[in-house]
């Protein structure tokens, strides 16, 4: 089966990418040594005294960062698929419903106002997460009407709200013109895995994993939803109810990701399309292949970001776009790809 081989290939590619990316950087560690250190860390094995520095770089600094990149890349790709189905719009991405700008406001608000000192290093992430959720709730309430929430109204409300949050952000930065706030904004709007630690990883990894499992189980209803709400009703799918559940799910998962990595654009928009071009539209396949592709892509993007002009880091969003745009355009031109008509 072509599908099974493809998936197995992607799993191997992801494992190899993670291993290589953990070894590469300012201090390069051979893949075999990387594997040995990881094994030692997981099993509690021993490391020679001379290797402690390399071990610490691999285990404490790089491993959580690379794993986070894989998790967030996979999560963004899967949520992108779900949001495109939810709002029935090819231009949708995980951030179209205002989540990322809400998160930025939350994060910057927390760092500027200095509230929640007790939460320490997690305060900003918590602020971002709450900002993301608040934005989702606002968008949902504003888009709701007696006739139910139509996909188009949801998108338009999300886009309008995003502008509102951007404005709020500008006002915040203007009123509190310190360097910290400005860099926090940059961090949250362009994205970075610089803050990855083993401490932040479990929450976001678990959220993404649960999100993936739930979405995959909804493959068939998602397929049905793309036939339109009327036909969906005739096939026993309550489109409005499904939309509500998807909205909650995608908001939570996106919020959790944005809280640790900022809003990394483009992956959630383009990976779903690229995957559909290759695998076809069925969500059963797309929702397995897209997260794997997103994970692999993000691991390499993060590697480029931290090595190309080291010790400085390039914004992830810039690299995803620079790499993704040409690939996307070539694929679009090579295959007849239709989304929503000719």
């Amino acid at each position: 089966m072509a599908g099974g081989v493809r998936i197995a290939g992607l799993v191997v590619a992801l494992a190899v990418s993670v291993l290589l990316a953990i070894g590469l950087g300012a201090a390069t560690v051979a893949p075999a040594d990387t594997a040995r250190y990881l094994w030692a860390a997981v099993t509690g094995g021993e490391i020679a005294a001379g290797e402690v520095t390399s071990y610490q770089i691999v285990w404490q600094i790089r491993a959580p960062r690379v794993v986070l990149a894989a998790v967030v890349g996979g999560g963004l790709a899967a949520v992108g698929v779900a949001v495109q189905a939810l709002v029935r719009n090819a231009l949708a991405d995980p951030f179209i419903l205002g989540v990322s700008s809400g998160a930025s406001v939350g994060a910057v608000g927390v760092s500027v106002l200095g509230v929640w000192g007790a939460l320490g290093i997690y305060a900003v992430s918590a602020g971002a997460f709450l900002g993301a959720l608040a934005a989702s709730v606002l968008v949902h309430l504003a888009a709701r009407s007696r006739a139910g929430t139509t996909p188009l109204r949801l998108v338009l409300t999300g886009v309008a709200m995003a502008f509102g949050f951007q404005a709020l952000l500008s006002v915040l930065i203007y009123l509190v013109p310190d360097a910290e706030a400005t860099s926090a904004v940059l961090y949250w709007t362009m994205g970075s895995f610089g803050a990855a630690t083993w401490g932040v990883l479990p929450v976001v990894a678990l959220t993404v994993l649960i999100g993936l499992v739930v979405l995959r189980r909804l493959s068939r209803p998602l397929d049905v939803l793309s036939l339109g709400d009327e036909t969906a009703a005739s096939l026993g799918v309550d489109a409005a109810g499904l939309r509500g559940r998807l909205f909650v799910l995608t908001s939570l998962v996106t919020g959790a990701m944005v809280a640790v990595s900022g809003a990394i654009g483009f992956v959630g928009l383009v990976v779903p399309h690229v995957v559909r071009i290759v695998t076809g539209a069925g969500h059963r396949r797309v929702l397995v292949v897209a997260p794997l592709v997103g994970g692999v892509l993000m691991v390499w993007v993060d590697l480029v970001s931290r090595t190309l002009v080291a010790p400085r880091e390039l914004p992830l969003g810039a690299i995803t776009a620079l790499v993704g745009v040409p690939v996307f355009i070539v694929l679009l031109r090579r295959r007849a790809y239709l989304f929503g008509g000719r």
Partner: protein
Amino acid sequence: MRLAFDEVTAVLDGREIVRRLSLEVPSGQVVGLVGPNGSGKSTAVRCVYRALRPTTGTIWLGRTDLASMSRKDSARSVAALTQHNGLDLDFTVEEVVALGRAPHHTGNQRLGARERALCHTAMERLDVAHLATRGVLSLSGGERQRVLIARALAQEPQVLVLDEPTNHLDIRHQAGLLVLLRDLGLTVLVVLHDLNLAAATCDRLGVLSEGRLVASGTPHEVLTEALVREVFGTTVTIVHHRGVPQLLHSLPERGSLR
């Protein structure tokens, strides 16, 4: 399985679009719903496939009140072709037809051998089997319409509700479809604008005008020159062809609008 509207009223935007409609589709019969544009035909059938909930009144499926059934349960017995169809992902024809099996599954199980055969038969009946691996978004209007009807058949319904199924179809496929509907043995409620086709294939007709049922009965009883003039506001001559009433248009003289 019989389908019956019992005093069904549907209100949209504060307006009564369907008013106290009572109409029965006896088990295994084909009933045509006809009427002018905006008379409430689509609104009435939307209530049957659960896209709309009647404001008052009951729709009976056999001896069960439709409103008491879960959507999924009713979708196992009632399949529909909707008037407007927005497809936005480029599924293949066979994938779309296979989605007709959705109400029979929970979760992601693959289709069994019997179900795949069922889908194939449905595609053959609608003459789209040769398109099986084509993307639906690149099909012609009529091809796409036939794919969607095949999907409804793959649902293995006992009741079939079709809203203008002959849209986009050429005359061979129009006739073929209606013959198929007649011979499937399913309970069929079909909205049609072509009164000649309706007369030739439906066991009974219901005529809607401004949301009310103004006539019902066999095509012979219903289709009269007076009714067509009154309900549709146009003059026709009715002739009988092999015992079936058929309409001939009597258009005004050329230049009469000037």
